[in-house]
């Protein structure tokens, strides 16, 4: 009941008239040309926003993204591929919301731009660490594999909030990167996955998982799809949860004319791969229990959880 009230409270800004003149008259949702699932999601966004914001919402594909009338338009861009374009001067939309983008990719292109904000696809690392600690109470050392991109959250801050020792290695452009990973996994109890497609992708995931596994260690994260691949567990956010937060963010913007700061998905659940857990002798609870337990601990992991 209390949560219901909170949700309603958060929705309130959408309902209130915007102060001053309404500048935004239209919303463009731009999606990659070849992704049916994202197109479906965009359809959902269109539906929800048209009803809540009562302004026209157009869906465009990325190859058709340059609109003539962008002065009064909010751009909602889906997918990491659009991020480089968003950062260029060609993007002359009044405001841009990058939705369902990885925080590492976003921060690599668009740090400190007040005309752009984001609702990230990935889970905050602090939350994933909290999940790892819950699954492995004796956890001390965490390894993180990175590329040239910065971590979305400062390492020192992560270490402080999680009370864990974290070691990172940069493996981008290294042909023998499995060796670096193998060494890292010798010194770490768990590998924390970061949503960075330059590191975690279809070509590398096999080696990452098999190397980690050979060392008798687990991968946590970076996303739900990796859990089916062989990661032990990950937090994830369901499409309806993303959409709800997106509608809120748009509402805040329309009301105040100020873009909210980039944010991680607030609502989440836990996905687990019980076979992987069993194989290394780790006893785990079911997803529902773990979700409830983690959500109860949210207060302990500070900002970003």
């Amino acid at each position, binding site marked *: 009941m209390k949560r219901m009230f909170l949700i309603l409270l958060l929705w309130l800004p959408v*309902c209130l008239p915007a102060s001053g003149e309404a500048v935004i008259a239209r919303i463009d949702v731009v999606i990659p040309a070849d992704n049916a*699932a994202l197109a479906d999601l965009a359809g*959902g966004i269109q539906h929800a926003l048209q*009803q*809540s914001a009562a302004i026209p919402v157009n869906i465009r594909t990325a190859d058709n993204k340059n609109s003539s009338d962008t002065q009064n338009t909010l751009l909602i861009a889906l997918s990491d591929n659009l991020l480089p374009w968003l950062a260029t001067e060609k993007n002359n939309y009044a405001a841009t919301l990058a939705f369902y983008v990885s925080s590492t990719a976003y921060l690599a292109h668009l740090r400190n731009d007040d005309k752009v904000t984001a609702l990230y696809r990935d889970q905050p690392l602090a939350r994933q660490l909290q999940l790892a600690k819950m699954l492995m109470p004796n956890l001390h050392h965490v390894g993180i594999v990175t590329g040239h991109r910065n971590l979305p959250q400062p390492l020192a801050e992560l270490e402080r909030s999680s009370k864990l020792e974290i070691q990172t290695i940069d493996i981008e452009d290294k042909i023998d990167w499995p060796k670096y990973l193998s060494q890292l996994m010798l010194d770490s109890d768990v590998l924390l996955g970061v949503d960075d497609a330059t590191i975690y992708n279809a070509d590398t995931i096999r080696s990452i998982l*098999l190397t980690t596994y050979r060392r008798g260690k687990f991968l946590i994260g970076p996303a739900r799809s990796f859990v089916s*691949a062989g990661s032990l567990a990950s937090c994830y*956010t369901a499409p309806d949860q993303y959409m709800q937060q997106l509608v809120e963010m748009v509402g805040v913007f329309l009301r105040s004319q100020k873009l909210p700061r980039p944010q991680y998905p607030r609502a989440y659940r836990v996905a687990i791969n019980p076979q992987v857990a069993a*194989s290394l002798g780790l006893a785990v609870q079911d997803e529902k229990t773990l979700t409830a337990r983690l959500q109860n601990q949210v207060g302990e992991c500070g900002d970003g959880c």
Partner: protein
Amino acid sequence: MRKSLALTAVVSFSLTAPSYGADLDDSQLESIPVPEVLTPVRLKQPRTEVPASVTVIDHELIAAAGVRELPELLRLVPGMVVSARSGWDYVVSYHGTNRRNSRRMQVLIDGRSVYQAGLATIEWSDIPIAIEDIERIEVTRGPDTAAYGANAFLGIINIITKHPDDSARLRVKATYGSSGTENYYASTSGNLQDSSYRVTLGKRRDNGFDTRQRGDERNDSKDAHFINGRWLLTPADSWNIGFQFGYKNGIKTDDLNPPNVIPPDIWVKDYYGSVNSQVFLSDKNSIKWQLDYSRTQYVSEYRTCENFGVIICGDINDNSQNTRVDFDLQDTWLSSKDVKLVTGTHFQRKHVDSQTFYAGTIDLNSYQLFGNFEYRFLPQWTATIAGSEEKQEHGGSDFSPRLALLFAPDKTQTFRLVYSEAIRTPDLYENNLNWNYTATKISPPNLIPDPFIRPFKKSLGDLTEEHIRSREFGYYGLWFGGALELDAKIFNDDLTHLISENLTNANLIPTNSTSLNQTGFETELNIHPIEPLHIHINYAQINSHASSSTDIANAYNEQTLTPRHAGSAGIMYALGDGLSLSSFYYFAYPVNATKLSRWDSRITKQLRLFTNNLSVSAAVQHYFYKYSDYFTDNTYDSPNRFLVSVDLSF
């Protein structure tokens, strides 16, 4: 107006959401599809679900133990008896039994058997791999011919080398120690596209034991160099292939030959090659095959003299060449999480070429079919039914069953009840021996024919299989969140039709006349209470009763290598700043009237030089008894032996 619209939006959103939201898995939204990598068939079986007694010695324990010989590591396995006939002639046997040879164990290196059929033994010192390349040793304590084939009679030692990705780019190591010990190791590894490789070069030498009981010097040194390589390719997610090769060349000196012979040197050359591949047909089914080839050549030539009224001398030899080809094919099928079926076939061809031992060449083929069916019939109960049918050319076929029942009250502990039978088919050396010495270059000439053939011993070829019937009740558990790992078992094994005679004695014709009963208890504890501290403990108590229908000496032989009490206790502590200490105590008594009581201590300092690791270590072995290694002739002059090593990895 707006307000009501927004409220409608909430309602309509939640109503319309299911049309795409509920069916849409967020993983479908990933811009890059992620393949399923660790499918059930690729996952290893959790320890709590293994229907056997298993001990795992991992690379950390191997490094902490600080020993330089592979057999020495096996003292960390409960019930494993490690002994030596000379400085290079190790005998390793689970629960001991006959000291003669390691005839009753299966020893595999990355799936390749290193059992020497022509000599009916495992030549531990001739195995061309370096301890530094070992990832872990998995020891199955108990018969399991159903899964590992012939010679998996008392147990299986499965040595798994490191994946090249887990080896350093370049590693060099030098070790020096008492008794002229010198070890050199150099290894390089890397990646080529979708493949990983490692090449290792090594050299090992030492002087063996120091003195005999009567005071004269032992002549049991070894000196060998070797090269080996491993190349692993993963062309696609669905299959992988691996290649291995090795070559070893060495010389050993020997002083256990007849007294009228100047002890000859033994030259050993060993080659091997291996190909293995795994194909993942689906997430439930995978096929694995492996083809191995190995050849070991022993050259030992010397001159001997005999009194025929006149002293006549001639050149004779103990040369032999042993070749082995193995092909193994197995299918793993997981029909559901409760049903697992492993089936397969194995072909083995042994070829031995020795004028002295076999009056020429002998070939022997054998075939095996095996199956292992595991079924969880209730959430906490799993039954395993396994069996293997083995057929040897010119011989009959034999079936060995294995039954196990597992009860897991929770996910961290299991009780197991295992009944297994196994056979060991008599070896070429036991059943096909045709031992003649052919003397050449006779001097003085023309008194006897040249070449002169002296028959020494001939097998009757009537030996049948040795048989074991083993029963065990065991427990495996993880306590305190895994900080304590406990394995314990009680066992009762009946071994019958044992071939117990000394095969090198010309007057003894081997028979299947000995029976042996072994009962006892063994346990293994791994404790990891705090981060820097590890404790490893094992203990076995074995009671042996043997009888022979032909010769009491046979019954005696079958108990010579079995200690009543044996075990070890080790403590490993990381002090920080790269400094670590380890200390292990080993004991076994009585073993042929000797008593092993040894304390090893080791200190290691690891320094980081830029991105490289330099590790310097010093170890001391202290013997509490002079006569510790099976024979009273196996002694060291000082109770303390030292080893220092410098190890640099890039």
